[in-house]
């Protein structure tokens, strides 16, 4: 991928907001829709968290947006205030008392939280780890996001993507045909990429970023699967079914599960994508209301396991180059994938220099959970990204390896804007290039 592609893609994103549809909902409709989401999703678990918060403010210290700016409004738990108020007034056991002393939320207040839950939260989960009470804040941010989305109060970029997805079945301009075309192109270059095979052990996903920015990602995955003689296929509909525009999980996930189960897939493997991984790995079973018949892995997890099991052999990269590894939040802290990518880094013959915050406490790249889509949040993103940059610099490594293409995109754009010369590489692509003959 070259700088021109990157800039073109960025330019495309910048134009997204203008294409957002006009929302015609009245304030009371917005409020009703948002509350409906909150009522559906608020259960005992979130209730216990909301009831336990002591307002100690420690979560602020975990949030890269607060750490970068020192602005109190970025205190994570403060971002779910409307949810907390709806909970206390309408769901919690003391609701009759709360109604005596508190006001209801308004649509305007909800809207004022748009910036806090979309621009300045990447659902990275660092605060969830910090909270001395064990409060899981990021899942509640997710409720807030869903509520705002239902109220058509999501940022313009999100609404534009969602509308496009509904109209064109394409996400960020990528649908079945674009995936098929990329697969054909790679196959033509000598690396076979089966798409929508009738039966396969492994169902592999391709994301819009893979197609638009990082085509080598699919090429590398294909090389690895083929080297392992795996029975695999790309899911042609993967982009449209697991889009970034907060598409409807209730509708799309059953279709994905059906696609996997029809093919007799034993494994569903997600590419280097922090959006698709938690959705398939944890959310899917709960949307289905049953355990899934297949296992869900991220590609880095899969590679690490094959290496550890001795099935995948790599040629070490000569020179014992120093690298540092950036744990993608949704795959690391959100999915426990820490050891596998590190096993791969080791097998690649690289010297891993860990950042001060790594593994479960690692900082976010600052653009996760679709934050990178929001044009107005660019400056904020950059400030938070600098934390990551400094931690990476402190390791002395000249290369950052990661396993999520959103992270990679954020690193690339962030580095460009900060004139930072550290290289950013994909674990999958490094492995794909070092397979033994």
């Amino acid at each position: 991928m070259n700088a021109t592609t990157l800039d073109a893609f960025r330019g495309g994103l910048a134009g997204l907001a203008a294409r957002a549809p006009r929302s015609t909902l009245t304030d009371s409709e917005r409020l009703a829709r948002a509350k409906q989401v909150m009522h559906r999703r608020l259960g005992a678990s979130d209730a216990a968290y909301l009831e336990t918060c002591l307002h100690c403010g420690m979560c602020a210290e975990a949030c890269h947006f607060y750490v970068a700016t020192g602005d109190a409004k970025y205190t994570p738990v403060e971002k779910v205030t409307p949810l907390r108020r709806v909970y206390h007034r309408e769901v919690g056991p003391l609701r009759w008392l709360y109604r005596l002393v508190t006001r209801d939320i308004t649509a305007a207040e909800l809207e004022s939280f748009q910036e806090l839950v979309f621009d300045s939260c990447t659902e990275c989960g660092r605060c969830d780890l910090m909270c001395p009470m064990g409060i899981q804040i990021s899942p509640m941010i997710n409720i807030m996001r869903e509520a705002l989305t239902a109220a058509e109060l999501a940022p313009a970029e999100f609404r534009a993507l969602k509308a496009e997805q509904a109209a064109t079945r394409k996400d960020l301009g990528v649908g079945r045909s674009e995936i098929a075309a990329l697969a054909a192109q790679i196959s033509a270059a000598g690396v076979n990429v089966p798409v929508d095979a009738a039966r396969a052990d492994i169902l592999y996903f391709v994301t819009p970023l893979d197609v638009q920015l990082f085509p080598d990602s699919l090429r590398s995955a294909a090389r690895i699967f083929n080297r392992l003689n795996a029975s695999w296929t790309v899911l042609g509909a993967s982009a449209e079914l697991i889009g970034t525009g907060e598409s409807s999980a209730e509708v799309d996930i059953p279709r994905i599960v059906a696609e996997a189960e029809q093919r007799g897939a034993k494994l569903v493997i997600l590419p280097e994508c922090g959006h698709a991984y938690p959705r398939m790995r944890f959310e899917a079973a709960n949307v289905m209301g049953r355990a899934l018949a297949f296992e869900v892995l991220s590609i880095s997890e899969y590679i690490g396991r094959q290496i550890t099991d001795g099935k995948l052999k790599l040629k070490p990269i000569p020179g014992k180059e120093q690298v540092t590894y950036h744990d993608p939040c949704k795959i690391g802290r959100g999915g426990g994938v820490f050891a596998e990518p590190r096993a791969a880094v080791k097998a690649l013959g690289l010297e891993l220099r860990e950042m001060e915050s790594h593994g479960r406490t690692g900082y976010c790249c600052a653009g996760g959970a679709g934050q990178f889509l929001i044009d107005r949040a660019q400056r904020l993103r950059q400030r938070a990204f600098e934390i990551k940059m400094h931690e990476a610099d402190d390791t002395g490594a000249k290369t950052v390896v990661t396993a999520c293409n959103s992270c990679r995109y954020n690193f690339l754009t962030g580095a460009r804007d900060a004139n930072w010369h550290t290289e950013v590489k994909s674990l999958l692509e490094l492995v794909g290039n070092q397979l033994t003959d």
Partner: protein
Amino acid sequence: MSVLDFARGPAFHVAIVIFVFGICWRLVGIYLLRWHPDYSRPRRGGLIGGGVHSMVMRSLPPHELEKHIVFQHVSGYGWHLAYFAAFLLFGPHIPFIRQFLGFGWPTLPNAWILALAAIALTLLLVLLIRRMVNPVLRALSTSDDYISSLLTMLPLITGIAASAHLQLLGVRYETLLGVHLLTVCALLIWFPFGKLMHLFLTFPARFQAGVLLQRKGVEA
């Protein structure tokens, strides 16, 4: 009826009934809400162990996260320990505790208790001021925080005054003792309805978090 008779009698009686009623109301009202089952495949087994682990480990944040909260952390531990030690290890409190539990335990000399109470009170005051000054805390704080903080301090203040037999503003000892008990009644009545409930809620919440993160394969 004197203040002390009122405090020891009807006031305390009503307070503890509200205390128990409120605690059960709130706890049952929380935990009987829907538990969304998690059908996703756990990355690791031992979910219960993960929960227990996190009940303990959340007391000790990792170094990377601890950086800017050392004072808050240490002072938090400090006042809680001093507060409970002053409550539990003061001789005259033992009959109070024994009427519920049926047993008591050895206690500390009063001078120690006074020192502990002074430490607890000082830290509480410092933390209260910090809450009012620090932008993050000020933005987060609700009336619950201030009411709870005040009601937590009052028994300490009146307790110190009573045990030191200070004739505060001409208030006689038995009245002071009555007021001390009344502040305890106020604390008990407020307890179920404010943040003080974290006495009961903290460990279950940590356990929940521990189970969740164990399922994801992340040390919580």
